[in-house]
């Protein structure tokens, strides 16, 4: 193996002592002490550690269906002295777009601030709302830059961005008239524009578009549940936004079930088309619907427990 860089030799030993639980042999060789240095087998350990930070955070889920997008998060209650319902975890980036993240909350706050800046500067330049793919691209680039330099560390968050790009004629900020009555140019006949969009961005800067996305502590079971919904096929076609809200709530409860130790609050937002309940805006799910979704989620969990108990009895 190639010798580690000289500057980190002295500290390499002490590092290995507390990361010994990790089975990977390259850890503790000194290549994990800094960003922007690859290990000889082609890994950036700082980015991988950032992913670990994400894996400790409360579970976040995003569901995309035909009518819109739902974002949900398991907000772990750090203290009983915090006001219930305060300190929101899901943020609005632009009117038609929201973000939820798992991992280090201050990192997430900075991510949100930057995303809002990108959305604003897009509006300044183009006089129109930023499309979700452009926002994801810009933020992906921003995250990636934080893996390149010694002087910074990667973001300790994985973010799920949901948006509904307007299906209407693109509204122009400050427009005065209706434009040409024969319709805007440059549009293909019969092609639909806009629609619900969901992206997940990782600390490395990697981002993909998803039908359903999950991250945080309970991502394994959440992903398993999302896959069952068949969002890519009929599940996504047929699911209404309200059903998606109920599924999101249930998935958060399922994902939490494995770590029953801590109290949590369920926080959910949604974005519909201009014809839907939120009129194209990113908004919190109304309390009545959220309560209903939570009730169903709890009932579903209890149902599962009873089934399990029954199975055991039969055995």
């Amino acid at each position, binding site marked *: 193996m190639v010798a580690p860089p000289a500057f980190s030799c002295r500290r390499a030993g002490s590092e290995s002592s507390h990361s010994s639980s990790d089975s990977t042999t390259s850890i503790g060789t000194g290549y994990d002490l800094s960003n922007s240095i690859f290990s000889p087998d082609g890994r950036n350990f700082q980015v991988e550690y950032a992913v670990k930070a994400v894996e400790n955070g409360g579970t976040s889920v995003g569901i995309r269906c035909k009518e819109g997008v739902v974002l949900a998060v398991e907000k772990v209650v750090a203290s009983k002295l915090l006001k219930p319902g305060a300190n929101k975890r899901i943020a*609005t980036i*632009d009117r038609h777009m929201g973000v939820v993240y798992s991992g280090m909350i201050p990192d997430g706050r900075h991510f949100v601030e930057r995303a809002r800046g990108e959305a604003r500067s897009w509006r300044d330049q183009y006089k129109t709302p930023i499309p979700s793919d452009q926002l994801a691209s810009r933020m992906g680039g921003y995250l990636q830059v934080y893996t390149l330099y010694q002087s910074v560390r990667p973001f300790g968050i994985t973010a799920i961005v949901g948006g509904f790009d307007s299906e209407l004629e693109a509204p122009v*900020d*400050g427009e*005065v008239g209706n434009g040409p009555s024969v319709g805007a140019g440059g549009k293909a006949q019969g092609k639909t524009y806009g629609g619900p969009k969901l992206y997940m961005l990782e600390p490395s800067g990697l981002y993909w578009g998803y039908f359903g996305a999950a991250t945080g502590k309970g991502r394994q079971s959440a992903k398993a549940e999302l896959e069952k919904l068949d969002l890519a096929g009929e599940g996504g076609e047929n699911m209404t936004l309200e059903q998606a809200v109920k599924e999101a709530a249930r998935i958060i409860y399922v994902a939490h079930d494995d770590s029953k130790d801590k109290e949590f609050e369920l926080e959910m937002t949604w974005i519909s088309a201009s014809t839907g309940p939120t009129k194209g805006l990113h908004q*919190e799910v109304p309390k009545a619907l959220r309560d209903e979704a939570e009730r169903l989620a709890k009932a579903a969990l209890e149902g599962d427990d009873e089934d399990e108990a029954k199975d055991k009895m039969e055995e």
Partner: protein
Amino acid sequence: MDHRPQAWGRPRDDIYGAYDGTYLNHNGPKQATQSPVVTGTSVIGIKFKDGVVIAADNLASYGSLARFTDVKRLRVFLDTSIVGFGGDVSDMQFLDRHLNELAIEEAYETEPLATTAEDGAVSRPGVLNAANLHKYLQRLFYARRNKFDPLWNQVLVAGLDAASRPFLSSIDLRGTAFTSPSLATGFGAMLAQPILRTHAPTEEDAAKLTREQAVNAVKECMKVLYYRDARSLDRYSIAVVTKEGIELKEDEQLEKQSWAFAERIKGYGTQTV
């Protein structure tokens, strides 16, 4: 003849004389907008018992030329208020973009629409209401006036105040602001205001008006304005703001016009009396 590239495409000095670039040299004081260019005319509004009606025609004039005939001069703010713009259209665009930015910043922090069970009314605690917007715009107009670079508009703000009572106010390019049961800007202040006052002279009278009465009064005034204001149009926008939200119609046509009175008007144009 001058064949140097920098002279290409320019009027020939030997024929037209040297180019007079003195207007490009700003040696005098800085000059901001001295007068509006493309303008919208009157905006009118009146309160009724459950809300406010506001209207403006769809014309932007370039001097006396009816230049743009599909201009939306009523702008929705945060689904709570309507701002009706009279005066310079480019300043209206600036303000519209500015208010849009403000509305997005509001969306970062605010609670969702909360529908109360009993009356279906939408209550939005903490959302900027029309009274707040009025104050904000007043400070903005006044600050720009103090920079000697005014936003050349007179605007009406229609909506509800913090106690969900109807709210209607006017702000002009100097930051002068006031409220009244009925209001009109521009030519409407002369022609429509007296008619609106017969419908609602006081707040108490406005609180007795029905929605239908208020809408009819406004439509009547729009007709009078079209008859007598030479910078007006028969297509207009009208909005009704109530607790239930905003109903905005942006392409209305003046109905039941009668130009019979025009025959009796003497003393204009080519008439020889």
